[in-house]
């Protein structure tokens, strides 16, 4: 991420005016077209909206990296704010700032996405930035070197949090072969030694119109927007399509465990079970399984903010029982088989053994009996409500479409929601029996040691 999320412009500090962004009803008209050079264009016009959010998602993430080059995709993302082509260093900041816009970028394991949200009248500015970014980034050696310490600093900031160590350990242990083994930020050793040329080659290889989708949400006319998009992107040359990733994680045979003993304020427990890729037919049941177990905070969790679900089994069994002060369940739906993760921050005096035993008990209950209809209805209602809430505004709508496109289809969330509606209690139990099994799980326990000093 180029800028920490907390540093988005604050309306209080910067001024304001209300822009009416409609939350789309399901199947809201969306125009999809592919240019001759392979760039897929997805347009969702929202009449009477004064803002416009432009997103470009590239099908390149840390899953496309190799050992020794971990973190390169994220580093490339940082470099794409430093100009090139028509843009001098600092121009992107200046252009967007003058418009009062906001922008950022996110590197995921499966995709990388960039956005600008600006007044709708400035469409051409966003298109020019994204078009230059796609093929003409400068990668000035001096700038690459200056960014090395920035990226390392981003990692070191994360290292200050104990849960980062737990997360890195969990993925590292659960995946031995597949690149989900490492997180998108990469290893510090690689960040210290990566050179400019391999980074630049990584960029040239994957940043091409035929490996990207452009998404617009907000106030524009489709025909006019398409004309401007063709002018901005039509001349860009495609690359040979990237080779499909051939690495597949072998089936895990036997539980894997790790006990970390480090200074920290509280014991932590993290358990990850292997689940299939996002497109699998069991994903809708896994959505409800994860909601029953730990609540639902939307497909793309940014919209949820600090909201904490309380009507779920782990909250009841661990937080209300004073064994944990916080619990969470994340369905990490990805292109390739991934993890469903349950986390707990232990309450003072609670033991990791006890919390793990209670978690096991709750999992067993899910396997033994399907959730009662009333509980499943509540889970359905949560997923349904969040489908509206997380589309609050053009930026979140663009993010949702882009993340879906990164997983293979811009309407991924809408289509999944429709399938979730049809999930019956027995399917939730079946998913629990199939996936929440001991020999396919990885357990990381953080034993907080006394903090020195």
């Amino acid at each position, binding site marked *: 991420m180029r800028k920490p999320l907390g540093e988005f412009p604050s309306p209080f500090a910067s001024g*304001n005016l209300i822009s009416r962004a409609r939350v789309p009803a399901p199947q809201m008209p969306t125009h999809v077209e592919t240019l001759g050079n392979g760039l897929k264009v997805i347009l969702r016009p929202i009449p009477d909206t004064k803002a416009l959010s432009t997103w470009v998602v590239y099908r390149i993430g840390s899953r496309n990296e190799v050992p020794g080059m971990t973190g390169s995709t994220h580093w490339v993302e940082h470099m794409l704010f430093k100009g090139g082509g028509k843009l001098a260093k600092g121009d992107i900041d200046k252009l967007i*700032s003058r418009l009062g*816009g906001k922008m950022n970028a996110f590197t995921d394991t499966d995709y990388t996405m960039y956005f600008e949200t600006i007044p709708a009248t400035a469409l051409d500015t966003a298109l020019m930035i994204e078009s230059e970014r796609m093929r003409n980034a400068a990668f000035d050696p001096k700038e690459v070197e*200056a960014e090395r310490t920035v990226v390392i600093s981003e990692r070191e900031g994360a290292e*200050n949090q104990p849960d980062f160590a737990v997360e890195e350990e969990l993925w590292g242990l659960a995946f031995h072969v597949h690149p989900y083994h490492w997180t998108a930020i990469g290893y510090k050793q690689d960040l210290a030694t990566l050179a400019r040329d391999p980074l630049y080659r990584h960029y040239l290889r994957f940043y091409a119109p035929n490996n990207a989708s452009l998404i617009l949400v907000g106030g524009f006319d489709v025909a006019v927007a398409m004309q401007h998009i063709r002018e901005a992107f039509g001349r860009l040359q495609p690359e040979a399509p990237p080779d499909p990733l051939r690495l597949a994680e072998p089936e895990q045979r036997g539980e894997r465990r790790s006990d970390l003993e480090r200074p920290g304020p509280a014991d932590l427990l993290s358990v990850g079970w292997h689940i299939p890729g996002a497109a699998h037919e069991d994903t809708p049941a896994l959505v409800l399984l994860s909601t029953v177990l730990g609540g639902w905070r939307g497909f793309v969790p940014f919209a949820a903010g*600090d909201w904490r*679900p309380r009507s779920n089994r782990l909250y009841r069994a661990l937080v*209300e029982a004073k064994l944990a*002060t916080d619990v969470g369940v994340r369905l990490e739906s990805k292109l390739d088989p991934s993890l469903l993760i349950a986390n707990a921050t232990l309450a003072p005096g609670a033991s990791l053994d006890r919390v793990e035993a209670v978690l096991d008990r709750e999992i067993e209950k899910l396997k033994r009996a399907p959730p009662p209809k009333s509980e499943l209805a*509540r889970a359905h209602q949560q997923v349904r409500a969040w489908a509206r809430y997380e589309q609050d505004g053009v930026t979140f709508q663009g993010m949702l479409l882009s993340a879906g496109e990164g997983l293979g289809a811009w309407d991924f969330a809408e289509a999944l929601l429709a399938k979730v509606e049809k999930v019956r209690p027995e399917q939730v139990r079946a998913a629990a029996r199939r996936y929440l099994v001991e020999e396919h799980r990885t357990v990381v326990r953080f034993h907080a040691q006394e903090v020195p000093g």
Partner: protein
Amino acid sequence: MNLPDRTVLENGAILVSVALPSNPFIAFRGTVPAGVAAEGSEFGLAEFTSRLLLSGTRRMGAAKLADRLEGIGATLEFRNGDEVLSFQGRCTRETAAETVRILVDCLSEPAFPSKEVERIRAELQNDLRIEADDTHHRAVREVSRLVFPKDHPYGREPKGDPSRVQRVRRGDIVSFHEAHVGPEGLILAVTGDVDRALIDEGIATPLSRLRGDGGAEAIPPPRPHRPGSVRIPMPHKSQVDIVIGAPGVPRRHEDYYALNLANLLFGRIGLYGRLGRNLRDEQGLAYYAFSNLDARTAGGMWTISAGVNPSNLGKAIESIRAEMDRLRTEPFSLEEVRDGKENQTGSLVVSLERNAEVAGELHRMEYHGLGMDFLERYADIVGELTEERIRNLARRYFLPSASSIAVAGPIGRLRVPW
């Protein structure tokens, strides 16, 4: 957009709303004057109370309350702040009345079950430990304590301290709630899929049933700041957090808008303004280096935050000082000021694209008495700011000699050149 609607209910509560009928859900944000400032010397009481408001009412236990809210897909959270107890959430048109009824129940008739009091006590103790292990949190707290000395509500830890958390009794919480949570001083801002009928029947009617005492007492102005320097060694961390702070101005102060623009140029615009350009873009010292202007009712604070590798601590601090000094030797240029003004007026369209943001802004307009036409006037307010005033205020308020500093992280014997 039509001007927001403002209604004072019979019980004293104020309801502000604006319809965005094409948004098929509702966001709300509200406050009552029951934050840290209301707790007097009973440190931590406001935080304890706020965390118990979803722990059950006379009609419903905590579990049933959660089931009811999540069963209709609504969200509701309470948060303690320096000045107010705030609440916010989302619901749909169909569930608005039910959500507001639950909100009113939580505010007016919380049960404060003893079991829940003990659970929250353990949660607070854990949170205090977690925050004590967070480098940025530690540095911010120390600077706040220095800028707002003598246990001023803006300067102290809202949760109190571990011994205080241990001593709070259920009776203290009940008394605090009775004295401070009621319709007097309550503001509720609602936006999204609302119309007059829904506001009247679904929101105003249940809200007008809220009874109780309350009302805001004036928050005393902070005592003078004596700049200081604090080192917080945390050898098990990777990164050092630097926080530098100085007094700012209250939100209604005449210097606010010019100072806000100066802060934007110094450490916010684009990739964190002048500060970010120097520390991040040119020197690669930090992933984040930014400034923040926090303006409240009785005072304010200006801060700089940066996270750096310990080997770069001295260089980073010297660079921050150099940027502050540069405000005197190389004041903001006409181009910088123009960019800042364009940013602030341009963001009129962009920064309030979401229901939740609109609800927050409506609430601020009412809370600070800015007027319901504030958004209409904002561009003129910014347009009238002169370059000279912006430069002068930056020089006056952003002074190294008038600022405190705290550094937290693996600092060992490193010198803090401030």
